[in-house]
C-alpha cells in the first residue's frame, strides 16, 4: 500500500463511526431545531408533517423561564462546585506530593476510588445517606442539634454538588499529581538552596507549572457541569426541589420524551452543545494568551 492511502485506511474506522455517531446527529439536531412537527389525528397516526419553523424553537427555548432558570442554576453550581473541587484536588495533590505524608499510596487510591463508581451508583449511595431515618449522617447531625434536610428544595443543589465533588476530586487530583511529577527535581533542589519554604515552593514553582493540568481539569469540569443529568434525575423522586427541567439536559430530555416537542428538545441540545463549545474555546484561548504573554 502506498503511504498516500495508508493514513486514510488507518483513519477510516474511527472517522466512519465519528461521523455516524457525532457529526450526523449534530446536523440532524440542527435540522430538527429549525422545524416544527405538526400532527394530525389523535395520536399522530394520521400522519406527521415537519414544517420549517425558522428560529421559533430557539426563541421559545431562550424565553422559556424554566430553561433559563436551569442554565442559571448550572452557572451557580459550576462556579461553586468546580472551584471547590479544583482547589480541593490541588491541595490534596500538593499535600500528597510534599512527601511529608505517610502512606501516600493508600490515600491516593482512597481518593481516586469514587471515580470508578458510576454516577448512578454514587447517587444511589449518597441518596441513602441523605434520607432521614436511613442515614446515619442525618442521625449524628441531629443528635448534636443540627437539622439539615439534604433533600430540601434549596439544599438539594448542594447535595448534588457533593456527589459530583465526591466522584471527581480524586480523578482531578491524579491529573494534577501527574503534572507535578513532571517538574524536574533540580527546581526543588534549587528552591531549597534558596531557602524557600514549602508554601513558597507551592506558590512559586508548583502552581504555575501545573497550570496546563489545572486548565484541562477546569474545562472538563465545566463541560461536565453543563451535562449534569444522572444525579438530579435520580434524586428527583426523592426531592420536591427537583423539577423535570432542573438542568438544561433534563429539560431537553423532558421536551423530547415527555412533552413530545422534538424541535424544542433539539434547539435546547444545540444551545447546550454550543455553550460547552464556546466555554471550552474561551478557556483554551485565555490559556494560550496568558502563555504567550509570560
Amino acid at each position, binding site marked *: 500500500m502506498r503511504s498516500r492511502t495508508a493514513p486514510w485506511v488507518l483513519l477510516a474506522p474511527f472517522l466512519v463511526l465519528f461521523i455516524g455517531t457525532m457529526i450526523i446527529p449534530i446536523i440532524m439536531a440542527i435540522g430538527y431545531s429549525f422545524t416544527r412537527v405538526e400532527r394530525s389525528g389523535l395520536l399522530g397516526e394520521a400522519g406527521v408533517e415537519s414544517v420549517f419553523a425558522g428560529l421559533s424553537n430557539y426563541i421559545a427555548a431562550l424565553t422559556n423561564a424554566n430553561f433559563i432558570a436551569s442554565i442559571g442554576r448550572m452557572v451557580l453550581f459550576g462556579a461553586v462546585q468546580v472551584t471547590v473541587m479544583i482547589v480541593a484536588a490541588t491541595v490534596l495533590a500538593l499535600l500528597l506530593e510534599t512527601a511529608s505524608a505517610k502512606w501516600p499510596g493508600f490515600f491516593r487510591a482512597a481518593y481516586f476510588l469514587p471515580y470508578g463508581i458510576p454516577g448512578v451508583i454514587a447517587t444511589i449511595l449518597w441518596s441513602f445517606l441523605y434520607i432521614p431515618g436511613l442515614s446515619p449522617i442525618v442521625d449524628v447531625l441531629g443528635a448534636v442539634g443540627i437539622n439539615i434536610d439534604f433533600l430540601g428544595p434549596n439544599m438539594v443543589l448542594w447535595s448534588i454538588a457533593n456527589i459530583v465533588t465526591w466522584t471527581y476530586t480524586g480523578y482531578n487530583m491524579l491529573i494534577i499529581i501527574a503534572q507535578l511529577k513532571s517538574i524536574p527535581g533540580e527546581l526543588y533542589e*534549587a528552591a531549597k538552596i534558596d531557602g524557600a519554604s514549602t508554601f513558597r515552593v507551592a506558590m512559586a514553582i508548583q502552581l504555575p507549572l501545573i497550570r496546563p493540568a489545572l486548565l484541562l481539569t477546569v474545562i472538563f469540569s465545566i463541560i461536565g457541569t453543563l451535562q449534569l443529568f444522572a444525579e438530579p434525575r435520580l434524586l428527583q423522586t426523592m426531592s420536591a426541589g427537583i423539577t423535570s427541567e432542573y438542568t438544561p439536559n433534563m429539560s431537553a430530555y423532558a421536551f423530547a420524551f415527555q412533552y413530545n416537542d422534538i424541535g424544542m428538545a433539539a434547539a435546547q441540545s444545540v444551545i447546550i452543545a454550543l455553550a460547552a463549545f464556546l466555554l471550552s474555546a474561551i478557556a483554551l484561548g485565555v490559556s494560550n494568551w496568558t502563555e504567550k504573554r509570560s
Partner: protein
Amino acid sequence: MSTTDIDETTTGRRKPLGNAAKAARGDGRAGARDAGRKPTTTIIITALLAIVALYFLVPVYWVVINATKSTEDLFGTSGFWFGENFQLFENLGAVLSANDGIFPRWGLNSLLYAGVGSVLATYFATAAGYALAKYRFPGRGFVYALVLGGVLVPGTAVALPLFFLFSSIGITNTYWSVLIPSLVSPFGLFLASIYASAAVPDEMLEAGRIDGVGELGLFHRLALPQLTPALVTILLFQFVAIWNNYMLPLVMLADEKLYPITLGLDNWRAQTDRLPEFYQLTIGGALLSVIPLAILILVLQRFWRGGLTEGSVKG
C-alpha cells in the same frame, strides 16, 4: 484571576532559580527534596489526609455494612454499624435470583458494552491518532479540527439526536444502539496522536519501510508496542466512561433485558417507595457492582498514572 499574579512571581523568580539549579547540578545532587522533615508536620498532614479519606470512603463503608442487614435493621439500627442479624449472603442471593436472575444479566450487559466498546474504541482511536501524528497528508488539519470540535461537544447533548437517527434506521432498543456510539473516543484519538508523535520515532518507521514492512504492518508491529502506555490509559478511560454511562442507555433502551447495571439498579431504587424490600436489593446490587470496578481501579491506577505522566511529559 490571580493566575497572572502567580505567573509574574515566577518570571521574577525564574532567573535566580535557574542559576541555583545549575549550582545544584554542579554539586551532583538531585531530588531528595524531602530530607529532614519534622515529625509533627508528618503527623498533621497525615491526620488531615486521613480525615479526607474518611469522606471518600464513607458511602462505600455504608454500603458494605448495610448490605448485611435485614430490612428492619436497615431502618432500626445505626447505619454505621452492623445490625442484629448478619444476612449478607441471603441478601446477595436475593439480588442474584430476583426476577429470574436479571441482575447477573445486567452485569453481563455492562461487561459487553464496556468491554467490547472500550477495546474496539481504543484500537480505532489509536490507529487514527497515529495516522494524524505520523503522516502528512491533505485534509489532516481538517480532520483534527473536526475531531477537536467533537471533543468539546458534550456527549449527552448528542444522545437525543442520536436517538432520532437510530430510531429512523430502526436500531433503538438493541445492543447495537448502545454499543455503536461507545466505539468512538475523540479524546483517545488526541491522547494517541500526542503520544505517537513523541514515542514513535520517524527513523524507526523509515527503517521498517526499507526492510519492506507494509504501512499497516508498521502500525501494528512497530508503533503499537511503543504506544502501550497510551493504550492502557485510553482503554481505562473508555471502559469507565461506558460503564458509567446513563443517559445513552436510558434514551436508547426500553427492554429491561438489555439494561446495563446502572439503569437496572436505578429501576430497582425507584421501586423502594412502594416496596421496602427493594432497599435490600438495591443496596446489595450496588455493593456487587462497586466491587469489580473498585478492584479494577486500584489495580490499574498505577498504569493509568504512568500513562498520563509520560503523555504530558513528552507531549
